[in-house]
């Protein structure tokens, strides 16, 4: 199998003070790859080197079996990039903008227009694609950003914090979309995020970096079983709820004010919500437990994830 991304002792320093990447050696296979690290860990620098926009200070990188510092043009014609920051001109419609970006990737005029509306539909923008982007919600803007990265049918998508600024529902939608792109569309994806709990749900492989250094890189199946856990917080009656859930044969664990229940399909949600409703308890919070990069780091020393 062709290696999607491979780096060898990749190092990048800005000026001679700031080290963004330090001796990073990593190889990932096609699929959905999560690149996790705290803000400032070097994720964006990593992406820019892969795109050939930044030259590494030392070491080598290969993307789709090409060297981006030498064949930048060739790499960039086969890669789609969604940056973290705002990058949409407010006074164009999404359809016009994505069409223009498709043309900038070399698609002929009519094809560009067709693929632009098709891609916008795939990311969930329909009639609103003819409205000016300036009036869009954050969620819609993120979708346009994704569409412009996808419109020229790349072999690899580089997504920098695609869920930034989205509400929980928007995050789930975006992650589901990325998962579809990686599986149904057959396009490899590199997703950058500072939230491990988010990307681990959709990724085949994870690369964790901290302060420019490789923390851990593994196929997700290699990592110790990461069970999805629901955390429930009720303002009062925690004990009652724990007892009730235990009676329902759910393996409840207590963690301070939180109740942790492993997820076993959608039924788990229903059982918990029913229990809370029947006991008439004030539900404060119910969400999927997110792991932080620090936990992953801790796991490398403790040998057990969470």
């Amino acid at each position, binding site marked *: 199998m062709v290696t999607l991304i491979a780096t060898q002792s990749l190092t990048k320093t800005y000026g001679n003070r700031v080290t963004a990447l330090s001796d990073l050696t990593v190889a990932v296979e096609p699929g959905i790859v999560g690149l996790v690290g705290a803000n400032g860990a070097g994720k964006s620098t990593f992406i820019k080197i892969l*795109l050939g926009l930044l030259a590494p200070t030392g070491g080598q990188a290969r993307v789709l079996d090409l060297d981006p510092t030498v064949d930048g043009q060739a790499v960039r014609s086969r890669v789609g990039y969604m940056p973290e920051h705002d990058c949409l001109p407010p006074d164009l419609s999404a359809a016009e903008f994505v069409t*223009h970006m498709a043309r900038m990737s070399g*698609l002929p005029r009519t094809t560009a227009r067709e693929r632009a509306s098709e891609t916008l*539909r*795939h990311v969930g923008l329909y009639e609103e694609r003819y409205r000016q982007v300036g009036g869009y919600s954050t969620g819609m803007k993120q979708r346009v950003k994704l569409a412009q990265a996808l419109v020229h049918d790349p072999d690899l998508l580089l997504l920098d914090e695609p869920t930034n600024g989205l509400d929980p529902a928007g995050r789930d939608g975006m992650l589901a979309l990325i998962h579809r792109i990686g599986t149904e*569309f057959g396009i490899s994806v590199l997703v950058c995020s500072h939230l491990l709990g988010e990307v681990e749900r959709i990724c085949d492989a994870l690369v964790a970096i901290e302060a420019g250094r490789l923390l851990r890189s593994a196929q997700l199946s290699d990592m110790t079983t990461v069970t999805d856990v629901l955390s429930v917080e009720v303002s009062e009656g925690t004990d009652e709820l724990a007892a009730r859930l235990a009676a329902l044969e759910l393996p409840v664990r207590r963690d301070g004010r939180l109740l942790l229940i492993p997820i076993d399909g959608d039924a788990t949600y229903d059982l918990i919500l029913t229990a809370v409703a029947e006991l008439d308890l004030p539900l404060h919070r119910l969400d999927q437990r997110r792991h932080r990069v620090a936990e992953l780091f801790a796991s490398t020393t403790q040998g057990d994830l969470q």
Partner: protein
Amino acid sequence: MTALDTHQPGRPAGVIHDIGYQRYDGPRLGRRHIVGALYLHGLRAAFGLGRSAKGKVFPWLIVGVVGMVAAVLIAIRAQTGQAVLSYAEFPEVLTLLIVFFCAVVAPELASRDLHSGVLPLYFARPLRRGDYALAKLAALVSATFLLLAGPLTLMFAGAAFTVDGLGAVWSEFGDYLVALGYVAVHAVVFSAVAMLVASVVRRRAVAAGAIVGAFLLTTPVVGVLAVLPSETASQLAGLASPITLVGGIGDWAFEAGGDLGIGRFGPLYGAVALGLVGVCVLLLLARYRKVASQ
């Protein structure tokens, strides 16, 4: 489209989000087409085409005024048979409007992309950074050229019907061609300066002000130099401002009997203009080499 139109059994009609993704294996055009597309996009944007009504107001206001001036000149010539303004004088009279046009359009082409943060999207594509800068500059040069060449062509057409005899039309045509060359010089010099200024200012309004400033604030310098007792100093005074610099080239190469009094320094004016454009283009390219890696 076919997948969209066919009704798939077992799925509710009208739900269209579940059509399969189609991989694209058609042609991917090369550098020339990409740059061409960007150039055309820029040229359209220069006149507010494909933009909201707000984006059309300023460029078309200026086009309107230039067109009106041309219309009045044509009418006078048709009535009196006298050309009150030669073709080559046309761009000189309208210098201020050309400056305004560049001040409106250059930020639209350069500052707008800086401000919206769209540049990384361009440079994450096969498009080269230098090509981006040059395509934008070419769009501004073309737009400025069209702004003047259009009315000039109308004036020639009007004159061609007024003058008697094919010989006279032919001589008109010669003057017209020379004036087009002069207009091109205006377009290149003014655009190069305006584009460079716009490429370093993120806010469009500020960029517009800076461009007008770059052109107008240098004119008093010319005024001061011109009144110096030294004849050479006054002959070289025009070099201090892009406007008089171009005017000097006009006196040297495009008009008989110029009014700026550049003496024998015509070629120097030409060389300085060439140098100015060259420096502006180099700085513009350097600017985009830097901005892309941020």
